[in-house]
């Protein structure tokens, strides 16, 4: 049965620039001049704006832009039991985030993403709304551990907590879940157990599960990608001028591949011709994979780009993909369901 997705489905990684007025509302809320209800309304409105942008650009599988999340680890640490915050920590230059400390056993309490998923899906133009969730290894790596004997032990408890969250999402109707693991390749000596931890977090999640990996030394994780029980891996590739595809081929990664064709670190908007050419090059090079195995996405979340730039980049991504779709017409139907029984 046709699921309605075209060949080379386009998607986003998750985050999208918050509208300026939302940032102002958040600021005014912190000063006590708006109440929680005002903030909630503004957050919902911003999700409408994001989905509208995604629709205008023609993205097949949108997200809610992670409007409710200041930062990908903070958000979950604030809602899981066992964490506390001492203060901001520098990530680069003048940019800081509140890196949490684990001070007692990590516990999953109330669902963290179900309300935002329900709201976004109620207004989504696409039945295939993707939900993103920070993976257990990255949560552990980007937190301080004051409680567990080892990071591995902490990560396993985080895997259980994230698994509960994903089960709640599936029960609420989520069809695509993306696990964000940007740290999974940062400690070579930990990769083997990091793979086990990710697999533990997605056990029993029988919808499409995507793994997002970006920036860093891919040679650390690519040899293990086939061991990770996800259906798809999406990657930052444009930023590296697609060099990592050689590694994908060398390790014969058999997953669906989300090709990062948009550099999120620059305001330069890629042309549609450039996107089409890049996609063509990647698909031809990875000729051991059938064309239905490819999806298209930016390298990473777009939240650090100006909103106008983010939208133009998405439009180019979709336009460039459309050029290539014409060439792939016939017999290429991407899967929307799980390809693995977890």
């Amino acid at each position, binding site marked *: 049965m046709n699921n309605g997705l075209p060949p080379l489905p386009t998607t986003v990684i998750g985050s999208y620039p918050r509208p300026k007025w939302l940032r102002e509302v958040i600021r005014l809320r912190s000063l006590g001049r708006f109440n929680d209800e005002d903030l909630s309304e503004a957050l919902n409105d911003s999700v409408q704006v994001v989905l509208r942008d995604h629709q205008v650009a023609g993205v097949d599988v949108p997200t809610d832009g992670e409007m409710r999340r200041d930062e990908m680890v903070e958000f979950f640490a604030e809602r899981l039991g066992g964490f506390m915050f*001492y*203060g*901001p*920590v*520098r*990530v*680069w*230059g*003048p940019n800081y985030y509140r*890196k949490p*400390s684990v001070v007692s056993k990590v516990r999953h309490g109330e669902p963290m993403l179900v309300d935002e998923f329900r709201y976004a899906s109620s207004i989504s133009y696409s039945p295939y709304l993707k939900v993103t969730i920070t993976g257990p290894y990255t949560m552990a*790596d*980007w937190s*301080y*551990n*004051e409680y567990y004997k080892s990071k591995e032990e902490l990560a396993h408890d985080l895997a259980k907590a994230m698994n509960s969250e994903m089960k709640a999402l599936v029960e609420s109707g989520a069809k695509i879940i993306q696990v964000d693991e940007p*740290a999974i390749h*940062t*400690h070579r000596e930990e990769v083997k157990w990091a793979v086990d931890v990710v697999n533990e977090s997605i056990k029993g999640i029988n919808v499409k599960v995507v793994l997002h990996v970006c*920036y*860093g030394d891919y040679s650390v994780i690519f040899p293990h990608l086939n061991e990770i029980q996800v259906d798809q891996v999406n990657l930052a590739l444009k*930023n590296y001028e697609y060099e990592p595809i050689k590694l994908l081929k060398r390790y014969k990664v058999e997953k669906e591949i989300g090709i990062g064709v948009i550099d999120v*670190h620059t305001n330069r908007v890629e042309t549609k011709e450039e996107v089409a050419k890049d996609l063509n090059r990647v698909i031809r090079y990875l000729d051991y994979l059938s064309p239905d195995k490819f999806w298209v996405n930016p390298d990473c979340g777009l939240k650090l780009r100006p909103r106008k730039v983010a939208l133009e980049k998405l439009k180019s991504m979709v336009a460039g993909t459309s050029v290539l779709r014409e060439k792939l017409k016939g017999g290429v139907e991407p899967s929307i369901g799980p390809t693995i029984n977890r």
Partner: protein
Amino acid sequence: MAEISRISSRLLGLAKEAAIDYVTGGNFLWDDIVDMACSQVTCHERNGLMRFYENNFYYRAPVLKGQLETRDQEYLTLTRLFRSQFDKNHAEGAKLKSSLLGPISFASLSQDSYYNDRVEVAFAYSKALNRSMLNVQEVVDAFEIQDPSIFDRRADQKLRSRVSEIYQSLVGGVTKEKHLITYFFLDSSSLKQFFDLPVDVFGLDMIEGRNKMRQIYPFVKERRVYLGVLDSRTTKMERVSSIKRMASRFSAKGASDVIVGFNSFTDFIPEIVASRKVRLLGKVKKA
């Protein structure tokens, strides 16, 4: 600058309270140690964000498109400013040290499209940095050379094998104390070469090295050592007794001086925790 001075003064006050022996101005003016290096030598261009070793911390990589040169008087002027602040407010006997990025790390962390050889980059950087050190040495009491790549097995092996010559070129004519600080890595097989380098204090990350003490002991006799015992990558507090025990062991093994402190710079932890750890250091001294 007023804000920088205010924060530096606050740090100096904290260091005085804890009776810290060696202090910096806090290096608040720079984003990171690589940024600081680029205030001392010409970095030509700075590229996109790169991960600083394996941390969730990023720096802009220097892009070398010409010869590395010593930069103008900017760094000297700023160091004079810190000196005047330090002179107004420091514990008795405390010394001001200037932080520098070591040549092995600079060569490893930069993107070179001029020399086409990391060894050449390291030599050129050492030469340029040496001039900067000679300019600044009248203002400071010590240099803290941070060079984690010395022990990084992933660093260019040719570069690591020439570390001795590179350091000779770095420290020529420098009369002030030279503290070589390494962190994140501790490669036991390179310890002999490390302890033969022409510096006064040998700094090791004892969080990484806590299980390698027996391999380190044979090299510390009559050496001044810096033990990085406060973990600047965790909010968990260390115990005074454990730090004292480790320092005593190194003294017992013949180290001529044992200095204890953070294992690396403290940008990786919230300020409130870094301050608590500085105070803990004061308690170690008093215990």
